Protein backbone atom coordinates (compact mmCIF):
# COMPACT_ATOMS: atom_id res chain seq x y z
CA UNK A 1 0.00 0.00 0.00
CA UNK A 2 1.66 3.19 -1.24
CA UNK A 3 1.91 5.95 1.33
CA UNK A 4 2.34 9.66 0.72
CA UNK A 5 3.59 12.52 2.86
CA UNK A 6 1.16 15.02 1.38
CA UNK A 7 -1.37 12.81 -0.45
CA UNK A 8 -3.74 15.62 -1.43
CA UNK A 9 -1.08 17.31 -3.54
CA UNK A 10 1.07 14.33 -4.49
CA UNK A 11 -1.89 12.56 -6.05
CA UNK A 12 -3.86 15.62 -7.17
CA UNK A 13 -5.48 15.52 -10.60
CA UNK A 14 -3.54 17.03 -13.51
CA UNK A 15 -6.18 19.78 -13.70
CA UNK A 16 -5.69 20.63 -10.05
CA UNK A 17 -1.88 20.73 -10.46
CA UNK A 18 -2.17 23.10 -13.43
CA UNK A 19 -4.59 25.27 -11.45
CA UNK A 20 -2.06 25.52 -8.61
CA UNK A 21 0.74 26.27 -11.04
CA UNK A 22 -1.28 28.99 -12.82
CA UNK A 23 -2.09 30.71 -9.59
CA UNK A 24 1.42 30.48 -8.12
CA UNK A 25 3.22 31.58 -11.28
CA UNK A 26 1.13 34.72 -11.74
CA UNK A 27 1.73 35.69 -8.13
CA UNK A 28 5.42 34.84 -8.22
CA UNK A 29 6.14 36.88 -11.36
CA UNK A 30 4.39 39.94 -9.93
CA UNK A 31 6.41 39.60 -6.76
CA UNK A 32 9.75 39.06 -8.52
CA UNK A 33 9.06 42.00 -10.86
CA UNK A 34 8.63 44.23 -7.83
CA UNK A 35 11.40 42.80 -5.68
CA UNK A 36 14.22 41.87 -8.09
CA UNK A 37 15.39 44.74 -10.33
CA UNK A 38 17.82 42.37 -12.02
CA UNK A 39 15.06 40.10 -13.29
CA UNK A 40 12.69 43.02 -13.96
CA UNK A 41 15.28 44.40 -16.36
CA UNK A 42 15.56 41.03 -18.08
CA UNK A 43 11.78 40.96 -18.48
CA UNK A 44 11.74 44.51 -19.82
CA UNK A 45 14.50 43.63 -22.30
CA UNK A 46 12.35 40.71 -23.42
CA UNK A 47 9.31 42.97 -23.67
CA UNK A 48 7.31 41.10 -21.03
CA UNK A 49 5.46 42.53 -18.05
CA UNK A 50 3.63 40.69 -15.26
CA UNK A 51 0.36 41.45 -17.11
CA UNK A 52 1.45 39.09 -19.89
CA UNK A 53 1.66 36.18 -17.46
CA UNK A 54 -1.87 34.86 -16.96
CA UNK A 55 -1.24 31.14 -16.72
CA UNK A 56 1.54 28.57 -16.69
CA UNK A 57 1.26 28.44 -20.50
CA UNK A 58 2.72 31.96 -20.58
CA UNK A 59 5.92 30.84 -18.89
CA UNK A 60 7.61 30.52 -22.28
CA UNK A 61 7.44 34.31 -22.66
CA UNK A 62 9.76 34.76 -19.69
CA UNK A 63 13.53 35.17 -20.03
CA UNK A 64 15.85 32.42 -18.84
CA UNK A 65 18.26 32.62 -15.95
CA UNK A 66 21.58 30.83 -16.04
CA UNK A 67 24.69 30.45 -13.95
CA UNK A 68 26.14 33.62 -15.48
CA UNK A 69 23.17 35.58 -14.10
CA UNK A 70 24.00 34.24 -10.65
CA UNK A 71 27.58 35.40 -11.14
CA UNK A 72 26.48 38.86 -12.28
CA UNK A 73 24.05 39.28 -9.42
CA UNK A 74 26.23 37.73 -6.68
CA UNK A 75 25.59 37.82 -3.78
CA UNK A 76 22.32 39.70 -3.22
CA UNK A 77 21.14 40.58 -6.74
CA UNK A 78 18.59 37.78 -7.01
CA UNK A 79 17.29 38.20 -3.49
CA UNK A 80 13.51 38.69 -3.54
CA UNK A 81 12.97 39.18 0.19
CA UNK A 82 14.53 41.51 2.74
CA UNK A 83 17.58 39.90 4.33
CA UNK A 84 15.83 40.20 7.69
CA UNK A 85 13.31 37.61 6.48
CA UNK A 86 16.04 35.17 5.41
CA UNK A 87 17.10 32.55 7.92
CA UNK A 88 19.67 30.41 6.08
CA UNK A 89 22.05 30.15 3.16
CA UNK A 90 23.36 27.00 1.49
CA UNK A 91 26.15 26.97 -1.01
CA UNK A 92 28.01 24.88 -3.54
CA UNK A 93 31.80 24.63 -3.69
CA UNK A 94 33.87 26.88 -5.92
CA UNK A 95 34.98 30.41 -6.53
CA UNK A 96 32.79 33.46 -6.83
CA UNK A 97 30.92 32.97 -10.02
CA UNK A 98 31.06 29.22 -9.85
CA UNK A 99 29.88 29.13 -6.27
CA UNK A 100 26.12 29.33 -5.82
CA UNK A 101 24.90 31.04 -2.65
CA UNK A 102 21.18 30.44 -2.17
CA UNK A 103 19.00 32.16 0.44
CA UNK A 104 16.04 30.69 2.31
CA UNK A 105 13.21 32.13 4.35
CA UNK A 106 11.56 29.88 6.91
CA UNK A 107 8.82 29.25 4.33
CA UNK A 108 11.47 28.18 1.79
CA UNK A 109 13.08 25.78 4.26
CA UNK A 110 9.67 24.33 5.08
CA UNK A 111 8.77 23.62 1.49
CA UNK A 112 12.22 22.20 0.76
CA UNK A 113 12.03 19.92 3.80
CA UNK A 114 8.50 18.90 2.79
CA UNK A 115 9.88 17.82 -0.58
CA UNK A 116 12.57 15.74 1.15
CA UNK A 117 9.90 14.30 3.46
CA UNK A 118 7.89 13.24 0.39
CA UNK A 119 11.00 11.41 -0.84
CA UNK A 120 11.52 9.66 2.50
CA UNK A 121 7.89 8.55 2.70
CA UNK A 122 8.03 7.39 -0.95
CA UNK A 123 10.99 5.23 0.10
CA UNK A 124 8.78 3.65 2.76
CA UNK A 125 9.78 5.93 5.65
CA UNK A 126 7.55 6.75 8.62
CA UNK A 127 7.92 7.93 12.20
CA UNK A 128 8.85 4.36 13.14
CA UNK A 129 12.09 4.62 11.16
CA UNK A 130 15.65 5.45 12.11
CA UNK A 131 17.06 7.64 9.36
CA UNK A 132 20.82 8.02 9.14
CA UNK A 133 21.86 11.10 7.18
CA UNK A 134 25.38 10.49 5.89
CA UNK A 135 25.38 13.35 3.39
CA UNK A 136 27.78 16.14 4.27
CA UNK A 137 26.35 18.72 6.66
CA UNK A 138 27.22 22.40 6.43
CA UNK A 139 27.01 24.56 3.31
CA UNK A 140 26.20 21.52 1.13
CA UNK A 141 22.46 21.02 0.68
CA UNK A 142 22.60 17.22 0.99
CA UNK A 143 22.82 16.96 4.78
CA UNK A 144 20.53 19.89 5.55
CA UNK A 145 17.76 18.81 3.16
CA UNK A 146 17.43 15.19 4.19
CA UNK A 147 17.93 16.08 7.85
CA UNK A 148 14.97 18.47 7.67
CA UNK A 149 12.89 15.97 5.72
CA UNK A 150 13.61 13.22 8.21
CA UNK A 151 12.44 15.48 11.05
CA UNK A 152 9.24 16.31 9.19
CA UNK A 153 8.46 12.62 8.71
CA UNK A 154 9.21 12.08 12.39
CA UNK A 155 12.00 9.56 11.91
CA UNK A 156 14.62 9.24 14.59
CA UNK A 157 17.29 11.24 12.76
CA UNK A 158 20.93 10.21 13.06
CA UNK A 159 23.01 13.15 11.75
CA UNK A 160 26.30 11.35 11.14
CA UNK A 161 27.27 13.61 8.19
CA UNK A 162 29.76 12.17 5.71
CA UNK A 163 32.91 10.19 6.42
CA UNK A 164 34.12 8.12 9.38
CA UNK A 165 32.93 4.83 7.94
CA UNK A 166 33.54 2.84 11.10
CA UNK A 167 31.27 5.14 13.08
CA UNK A 168 28.62 5.05 10.33
CA UNK A 169 28.55 1.26 10.53
CA UNK A 170 28.44 1.31 14.32
CA UNK A 171 25.34 3.54 14.28
CA UNK A 172 23.64 1.53 11.55
CA UNK A 173 24.12 -1.68 13.55
CA UNK A 174 23.66 -0.37 17.13
CA UNK A 175 20.71 1.97 16.49
CA UNK A 176 19.22 -0.34 13.86
CA UNK A 177 19.06 2.38 11.21
CA UNK A 178 16.44 1.53 8.60
CA UNK A 179 16.98 4.37 6.10
CA UNK A 180 20.32 5.58 4.81
CA UNK A 181 20.78 8.90 2.99
CA UNK A 182 24.09 9.59 1.22
CA UNK A 183 25.74 9.68 -2.18
CA UNK A 184 25.44 6.41 -4.12
CA UNK A 185 29.22 6.03 -4.22
CA UNK A 186 29.42 6.31 -0.45
CA UNK A 187 26.57 3.81 -0.06
CA UNK A 188 28.48 1.43 -2.24
CA UNK A 189 31.63 1.96 -0.23
CA UNK A 190 29.75 1.40 3.03
CA UNK A 191 28.29 -1.80 1.60
CA UNK A 192 31.72 -3.13 0.71
CA UNK A 193 33.09 -2.19 4.14
CA UNK A 194 30.19 -3.95 5.90
CA UNK A 195 30.64 -7.02 3.74
CA UNK A 196 34.32 -7.14 4.71
CA UNK A 197 33.29 -6.95 8.36
CA UNK A 198 31.18 -10.02 7.80
CA UNK A 199 27.71 -8.40 7.65
CA UNK A 200 25.47 -9.96 5.02
CA UNK A 201 22.32 -8.26 3.64
CA UNK A 202 20.20 -10.11 6.20
CA UNK A 203 22.27 -8.86 9.16
CA UNK A 204 21.98 -5.22 8.10
CA UNK A 205 18.87 -3.49 9.54
CA UNK A 206 18.63 -0.98 6.66
CA UNK A 207 15.59 -1.35 4.37
CA UNK A 208 15.89 1.67 2.11
CA UNK A 209 18.45 4.16 0.87
CA UNK A 210 17.95 7.61 -0.64
CA UNK A 211 20.93 8.31 -2.81
CA UNK A 212 21.68 11.34 -4.94
CA UNK A 213 23.94 14.31 -5.68
CA UNK A 214 25.83 12.39 -8.35
CA UNK A 215 25.07 10.28 -11.40
CA UNK A 216 24.78 6.52 -10.90
CA UNK A 217 23.83 3.58 -13.06
CA UNK A 218 21.26 0.78 -12.79
CA UNK A 219 24.17 -1.67 -12.31
CA UNK A 220 25.32 0.36 -9.33
CA UNK A 221 21.78 0.39 -7.96
CA UNK A 222 21.55 -3.40 -8.17
CA UNK A 223 24.93 -3.88 -6.52
CA UNK A 224 24.09 -1.53 -3.63
CA UNK A 225 20.67 -3.17 -3.17
CA UNK A 226 22.26 -6.61 -3.05
CA UNK A 227 25.09 -5.82 -0.63
CA UNK A 228 23.02 -3.79 1.81
CA UNK A 229 19.77 -5.73 1.38
CA UNK A 230 17.78 -2.55 0.71
CA UNK A 231 15.75 -0.82 -1.95
CA UNK A 232 17.77 2.11 -3.34
CA UNK A 233 15.93 5.29 -4.37
CA UNK A 234 17.30 8.11 -6.51
CA UNK A 235 16.82 11.75 -5.51
CA UNK A 236 17.55 14.86 -7.57
CA UNK A 237 18.10 18.50 -6.78
CA UNK A 238 20.32 21.51 -7.11
CA UNK A 239 21.19 24.31 -4.74
CA UNK A 240 19.87 26.99 -7.12
CA UNK A 241 16.37 25.50 -6.94
CA UNK A 242 16.57 24.43 -3.24
CA UNK A 243 18.61 21.24 -2.89
CA UNK A 244 17.80 17.52 -2.91
CA UNK A 245 14.12 16.75 -3.21
CA UNK A 246 13.37 18.77 -6.35
CA UNK A 247 12.51 15.30 -7.67
CA UNK A 248 12.52 11.84 -6.11
CA UNK A 249 11.90 8.22 -6.99
CA UNK A 250 8.87 6.24 -5.86
CA UNK A 251 8.66 2.48 -5.32
CA UNK A 252 8.34 1.98 -9.09
CA UNK A 253 11.99 3.11 -9.44
CA UNK A 254 11.11 4.37 -12.89
CA UNK A 255 11.87 8.08 -13.14
CA UNK A 256 11.76 10.75 -10.45
CA UNK A 257 8.58 12.64 -9.62
CA UNK A 258 9.22 16.38 -9.77
CA UNK A 259 7.57 18.31 -6.95
CA UNK A 260 5.84 20.45 -9.54
CA UNK A 261 3.56 22.24 -7.13
CA UNK A 262 6.79 24.06 -6.14
CA UNK A 263 9.13 23.61 -9.10
CA UNK A 264 7.80 23.84 -12.64
CA UNK A 265 9.89 21.86 -15.12
CA UNK A 266 10.39 22.41 -18.83
CA UNK A 267 12.60 20.79 -21.44
CA UNK A 268 14.13 23.16 -23.97
CA UNK A 269 16.41 22.94 -26.96
CA UNK A 270 19.74 24.04 -25.44
CA UNK A 271 20.73 25.82 -28.67
CA UNK A 272 17.57 27.72 -29.51
CA UNK A 273 15.92 27.93 -26.09
CA UNK A 274 12.63 26.69 -27.64
CA UNK A 275 10.48 24.52 -25.35
CA UNK A 276 10.34 20.92 -26.59
CA UNK A 277 7.30 18.63 -26.53
CA UNK A 278 6.94 16.04 -23.77
CA UNK A 279 9.16 13.02 -24.28
CA UNK A 280 11.92 14.89 -26.13
CA UNK A 281 15.41 15.02 -24.78
CA UNK A 282 16.74 18.48 -24.00
CA UNK A 283 17.90 20.81 -21.27
CA UNK A 284 15.99 20.78 -18.02
CA UNK A 285 14.72 24.19 -16.88
CA UNK A 286 13.10 24.95 -13.50
CA UNK A 287 10.93 27.75 -12.20
CA UNK A 288 10.42 28.12 -8.45
CA UNK A 289 6.69 28.75 -8.16
CA UNK A 290 6.53 29.74 -4.52
CA UNK A 291 10.01 30.05 -3.08
CA UNK A 292 10.40 33.47 -1.52
CA UNK A 293 14.04 34.43 -0.99
CA UNK A 294 15.78 33.05 -4.04
CA UNK A 295 13.14 32.35 -6.68
CA UNK A 296 14.82 31.14 -9.84
CA UNK A 297 12.65 31.75 -12.90
CA UNK A 298 13.31 29.50 -15.90
CA UNK A 299 16.69 28.53 -14.53
CA UNK A 300 18.76 26.51 -16.99
CA UNK A 301 20.17 23.52 -15.12
CA UNK A 302 22.48 22.37 -17.97
CA UNK A 303 21.26 18.84 -17.25
CA UNK A 304 20.12 16.89 -20.30
CA UNK A 305 16.92 15.09 -19.48
CA UNK A 306 13.54 13.74 -20.62
CA UNK A 307 10.15 14.38 -18.93
CA UNK A 308 7.04 12.22 -18.96
CA UNK A 309 3.52 12.86 -17.66
CA UNK A 310 2.39 9.29 -18.21
CA UNK A 311 0.52 8.07 -15.14
CA UNK A 312 2.70 6.23 -12.61
CA UNK A 313 1.33 3.15 -10.84
CA UNK A 314 2.46 4.55 -7.48
CA UNK A 315 -0.51 6.92 -7.69
CA UNK A 316 1.54 10.10 -7.78
CA UNK A 317 0.45 12.41 -10.56
CA UNK A 318 3.49 14.66 -10.70
CA UNK A 319 5.59 14.72 -13.84
CA UNK A 320 8.57 12.37 -13.85
CA UNK A 321 12.11 13.09 -15.05
CA UNK A 322 14.54 10.49 -16.25
CA UNK A 323 18.01 10.40 -14.71
CA UNK A 324 19.96 13.24 -16.34
CA UNK A 325 21.76 11.89 -19.41
CA UNK A 326 24.59 14.41 -19.42
CA UNK A 327 25.40 18.10 -19.30
CA UNK A 328 25.39 20.96 -21.79
CA UNK A 329 28.42 22.49 -20.06
CA UNK A 330 31.71 21.04 -18.85
CA UNK A 331 30.65 20.52 -15.24
CA UNK A 332 31.69 17.19 -13.74
CA UNK A 333 30.14 15.60 -10.70
CA UNK A 334 32.85 13.81 -8.76
CA UNK A 335 31.99 12.07 -5.49
CA UNK A 336 28.88 14.21 -5.35
CA UNK A 337 30.72 17.48 -5.77
CA UNK A 338 30.32 19.82 -8.75
CA UNK A 339 33.66 20.41 -10.41
CA UNK A 340 34.35 22.81 -13.26
CA UNK A 341 37.66 22.48 -15.14
CA UNK A 342 38.03 26.26 -14.89
CA UNK A 343 38.30 25.92 -11.09
CA UNK A 344 41.36 23.73 -11.54
CA UNK A 345 42.75 26.28 -13.96
CA UNK A 346 42.32 28.99 -11.32
CA UNK A 347 44.28 27.00 -8.73
CA UNK A 348 47.11 26.37 -11.20
CA UNK A 349 47.30 30.03 -12.18
CA UNK A 350 47.15 31.14 -8.53
CA UNK A 351 50.18 29.00 -7.78
CA UNK A 352 52.09 30.30 -10.77
CA UNK A 353 51.68 27.39 -13.14
CA UNK A 354 50.68 27.35 -16.77
CA UNK A 355 47.12 26.03 -17.07
CA UNK A 356 48.31 22.91 -18.81
CA UNK A 357 46.42 20.12 -17.17
CA UNK A 358 44.17 17.16 -17.70
CA UNK A 359 41.47 15.76 -15.45
CA UNK A 360 41.08 12.00 -15.26
CA UNK A 361 37.96 10.63 -13.68
CA UNK A 362 37.21 6.97 -13.29
CA UNK A 363 35.15 4.75 -11.03
CA UNK A 364 36.99 1.99 -9.21
CA UNK A 365 34.96 -0.27 -6.88
CA UNK A 366 32.03 2.13 -7.31
CA UNK A 367 34.05 5.07 -5.99
CA UNK A 368 35.14 7.97 -8.15
CA UNK A 369 38.85 8.42 -8.63
CA UNK A 370 39.99 11.93 -9.47
CA UNK A 371 43.41 12.70 -10.86
CA UNK A 372 44.74 16.02 -12.07
CA UNK A 373 47.71 15.73 -14.41
CA UNK A 374 49.95 18.72 -14.70
CA UNK A 375 52.69 19.05 -17.28
CA UNK A 376 56.11 19.67 -15.80
CA UNK A 377 57.59 22.98 -16.94
CA UNK A 378 61.18 24.29 -16.80
CA UNK A 379 60.02 26.87 -14.23
CA UNK A 380 58.67 24.19 -11.91
CA UNK A 381 61.51 21.76 -12.32
CA UNK A 382 64.39 21.49 -9.89
CA UNK A 383 66.93 18.79 -9.15
CA UNK A 384 65.55 18.62 -5.62
CA UNK A 385 62.90 15.89 -5.29
CA UNK A 386 61.73 17.19 -1.92
CA UNK A 387 60.98 20.59 -3.41
CA UNK A 388 58.99 19.10 -6.27
CA UNK A 389 56.90 16.86 -4.03
CA UNK A 390 56.27 19.83 -1.76
CA UNK A 391 54.90 21.81 -4.72
CA UNK A 392 52.84 18.78 -5.63
CA UNK A 393 51.22 18.66 -2.20
CA UNK A 394 50.69 22.42 -2.19
CA UNK A 395 48.82 22.05 -5.44
CA UNK A 396 46.82 19.20 -3.97
CA UNK A 397 45.89 21.33 -0.96
CA UNK A 398 44.92 24.22 -3.24
CA UNK A 399 42.61 21.94 -5.19
CA UNK A 400 41.09 20.55 -2.01
CA UNK A 401 40.27 23.99 -0.65
CA UNK A 402 38.86 25.13 -4.02
CA UNK A 403 36.81 22.03 -4.82
CA UNK A 404 36.16 20.44 -1.47
CA UNK A 405 37.40 17.06 -2.66
CA UNK A 406 40.83 15.47 -2.81
CA UNK A 407 42.60 15.05 -6.11
CA UNK A 408 45.68 13.05 -6.88
CA UNK A 409 48.15 15.42 -8.52
CA UNK A 410 50.45 13.76 -11.04
CA UNK A 411 53.31 15.49 -12.77
CA UNK A 412 53.71 14.39 -16.35
CA UNK A 413 56.28 14.99 -19.05
CA UNK A 414 55.84 18.11 -21.18
CA UNK A 415 53.57 17.87 -24.22
CA UNK A 416 52.13 14.52 -23.14
CA UNK A 417 48.63 15.82 -22.48
CA UNK A 418 46.51 14.58 -25.34
CA UNK A 419 45.76 17.20 -27.92
CA UNK A 420 43.18 16.77 -30.62
CA UNK A 421 43.20 19.25 -33.48
CA UNK A 422 45.63 21.36 -31.51
CA UNK A 423 43.19 21.67 -28.63
CA UNK A 424 44.14 19.97 -25.38
CA UNK A 425 41.70 17.38 -24.11
CA UNK A 426 41.03 18.64 -20.59
CA UNK A 427 38.72 15.97 -19.29
CA UNK A 428 38.90 12.22 -19.63
CA UNK A 429 35.93 10.65 -17.90
CA UNK A 430 36.16 6.87 -18.01
CA UNK A 431 33.25 6.25 -15.66
CA UNK A 432 30.58 4.01 -17.13
CA UNK A 433 27.44 5.62 -15.84
Amino acid sequence: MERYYQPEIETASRERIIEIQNEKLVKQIRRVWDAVPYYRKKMMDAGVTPDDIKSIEDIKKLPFLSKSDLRDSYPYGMLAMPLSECVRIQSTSGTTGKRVVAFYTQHDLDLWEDCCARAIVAAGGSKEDVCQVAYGYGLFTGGAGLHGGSHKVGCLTVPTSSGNTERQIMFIMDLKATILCCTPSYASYLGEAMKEMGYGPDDIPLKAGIFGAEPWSEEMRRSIQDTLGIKAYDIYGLTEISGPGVAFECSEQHGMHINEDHFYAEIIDPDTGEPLPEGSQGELVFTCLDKEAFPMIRYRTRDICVLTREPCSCGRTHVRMRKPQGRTDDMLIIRGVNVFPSQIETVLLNQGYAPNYQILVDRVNNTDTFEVRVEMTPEMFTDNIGEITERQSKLSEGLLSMLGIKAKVSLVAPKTITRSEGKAVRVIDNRKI
Partner: protein
Amino acid sequence: MSVKQISVFLENRPGMLSQLTTELAASGINMRALSLAETKDFGIARIIADDTLKAMHDLKAGGFVASLTPVLAYEIPNEAGGLDRLLKTMTESNVNIEYMYSCLSLRGNSRAVMVFRVSDTEKAESALLSRGLHALSQEEI
Protein backbone atom coordinates in the same frame (compact mmCIF):
# COMPACT_ATOMS: atom_id res chain seq x y z
CA MET B 1 85.97 23.18 -9.87
CA SER B 2 82.45 21.91 -9.74
CA VAL B 3 81.03 19.74 -12.50
CA LYS B 4 77.76 20.49 -14.30
CA GLN B 5 75.25 17.72 -13.97
CA ILE B 6 72.16 17.58 -16.16
CA SER B 7 68.97 16.72 -14.27
CA VAL B 8 66.09 15.50 -16.43
CA PHE B 9 62.45 15.09 -15.38
CA LEU B 10 61.03 11.67 -16.21
CA GLU B 11 57.54 10.38 -15.71
CA ASN B 12 57.54 7.08 -13.85
CA ARG B 13 56.22 4.79 -16.58
CA PRO B 14 57.65 2.24 -19.02
CA GLY B 15 59.65 3.66 -21.90
CA MET B 16 60.47 7.07 -20.46
CA LEU B 17 64.14 6.34 -19.74
CA SER B 18 64.56 4.77 -23.14
CA GLN B 19 63.14 7.94 -24.75
CA LEU B 20 65.90 9.84 -22.98
CA THR B 21 68.71 7.50 -24.07
CA THR B 22 67.37 7.52 -27.65
CA GLU B 23 67.53 11.30 -27.66
CA LEU B 24 71.09 11.30 -26.29
CA ALA B 25 72.19 8.57 -28.70
CA ALA B 26 70.86 10.55 -31.65
CA SER B 27 72.82 13.57 -30.42
CA GLY B 28 75.97 11.53 -30.11
CA ILE B 29 76.23 12.25 -26.40
CA ASN B 30 78.21 9.86 -24.22
CA MET B 31 77.11 9.68 -20.63
CA ARG B 32 80.05 9.70 -18.25
CA ALA B 33 77.81 9.13 -15.25
CA LEU B 34 74.15 8.33 -14.72
CA SER B 35 72.01 8.05 -11.64
CA LEU B 36 68.26 7.75 -11.20
CA ALA B 37 66.16 9.07 -8.34
CA GLU B 38 62.52 8.16 -8.17
CA THR B 39 59.30 8.91 -6.30
CA LYS B 40 55.99 7.12 -6.76
CA ASP B 41 55.04 8.92 -9.94
CA PHE B 42 58.08 10.69 -11.30
CA GLY B 43 61.84 10.42 -11.37
CA ILE B 44 64.91 12.48 -12.08
CA ALA B 45 67.74 11.21 -14.26
CA ARG B 46 71.05 12.79 -13.30
CA ILE B 47 73.61 12.74 -16.04
CA ILE B 48 77.14 13.92 -16.53
CA ALA B 49 77.64 14.22 -20.28
CA ASP B 50 80.76 14.54 -22.40
CA ASP B 51 79.21 17.62 -24.03
CA THR B 52 76.96 19.34 -21.51
CA LEU B 53 75.85 22.28 -23.64
CA LYS B 54 74.94 20.17 -26.67
CA ALA B 55 73.17 17.66 -24.46
CA MET B 56 71.12 20.40 -22.76
CA HIS B 57 70.27 22.03 -26.06
CA ASP B 58 69.17 18.81 -27.73
CA LEU B 59 67.20 17.57 -24.72
CA LYS B 60 65.25 20.81 -24.54
CA ALA B 61 64.63 20.73 -28.27
CA GLY B 62 63.40 17.16 -27.84
CA GLY B 63 60.77 18.31 -25.35
CA PHE B 64 62.49 17.26 -22.13
CA VAL B 65 62.50 19.39 -19.02
CA ALA B 66 66.12 19.58 -17.85
CA SER B 67 68.24 21.78 -15.62
CA LEU B 68 71.88 22.10 -14.66
CA THR B 69 73.07 21.38 -11.14
CA PRO B 70 76.60 21.87 -9.81
CA VAL B 71 78.05 18.71 -8.28
CA LEU B 72 81.48 17.83 -6.87
CA ALA B 73 83.43 14.85 -8.19
CA TYR B 74 86.35 13.22 -6.37
CA GLU B 75 88.57 10.41 -7.43
CA ILE B 76 89.22 7.65 -4.93
CA PRO B 77 91.28 4.44 -5.06
CA ASN B 78 89.21 1.46 -6.21
CA GLU B 79 89.78 -0.52 -3.01
CA ALA B 80 88.23 -1.35 0.35
CA GLY B 81 88.06 1.77 2.51
CA GLY B 82 88.50 4.19 -0.41
CA LEU B 83 85.10 5.88 -0.02
CA ASP B 84 85.23 5.66 3.74
CA ARG B 85 88.37 7.79 3.89
CA LEU B 86 86.83 10.40 1.60
CA LEU B 87 83.63 10.57 3.67
CA LYS B 88 85.58 10.90 6.91
CA THR B 89 87.31 13.96 5.47
CA MET B 90 83.96 15.34 4.38
CA THR B 91 82.54 14.80 7.85
CA GLU B 92 85.51 16.60 9.40
CA SER B 93 84.88 19.48 6.98
CA ASN B 94 81.22 19.51 8.04
CA VAL B 95 79.95 18.91 4.48
CA ASN B 96 76.31 17.90 4.18
CA ILE B 97 75.67 15.43 1.37
CA GLU B 98 72.27 15.45 -0.34
CA TYR B 99 72.97 12.60 -2.68
CA MET B 100 75.87 10.71 -4.16
CA TYR B 101 76.61 8.27 -6.92
CA SER B 102 79.65 6.65 -8.48
CA CYS B 103 81.07 6.38 -11.97
CA LEU B 104 84.07 4.96 -13.78
CA SER B 105 87.36 6.75 -13.76
CA LEU B 106 88.98 7.83 -17.02
CA ARG B 107 92.24 6.66 -15.48
CA GLY B 108 91.39 2.99 -15.47
CA ASN B 109 90.33 0.27 -13.07
CA SER B 110 92.44 1.22 -10.10
CA ARG B 111 90.48 4.43 -9.55
CA ALA B 112 86.79 5.24 -9.05
CA VAL B 113 84.94 8.56 -9.14
CA MET B 114 82.32 9.65 -6.60
CA VAL B 115 79.89 12.43 -7.51
CA PHE B 116 78.33 14.50 -4.70
CA ARG B 117 75.49 16.96 -4.48
CA VAL B 118 76.11 18.99 -1.32
CA SER B 119 74.20 21.79 0.42
CA ASP B 120 76.78 24.48 -0.33
CA THR B 121 79.01 23.52 -3.24
CA GLU B 122 81.54 26.36 -3.05
CA LYS B 123 82.02 26.16 0.69
CA ALA B 124 82.39 22.38 0.56
CA GLU B 125 84.87 22.56 -2.26
CA SER B 126 87.18 25.03 -0.51
CA ALA B 127 86.92 23.21 2.82
CA LEU B 128 87.95 19.95 1.15
CA LEU B 129 90.66 21.65 -0.86
CA SER B 130 92.21 22.94 2.36
CA ARG B 131 92.45 19.27 3.41
CA GLY B 132 94.18 18.38 0.18
CA LEU B 133 91.23 17.06 -1.79
CA HIS B 134 91.03 18.29 -5.40
CA ALA B 135 87.65 18.20 -7.09
CA LEU B 136 87.72 16.92 -10.67
CA SER B 137 86.97 19.33 -13.49
CA GLN B 138 84.42 18.67 -16.23
CA GLU B 139 87.24 17.46 -18.52
CA GLU B 140 88.70 15.14 -15.91
CA ILE B 141 85.54 13.16 -15.41
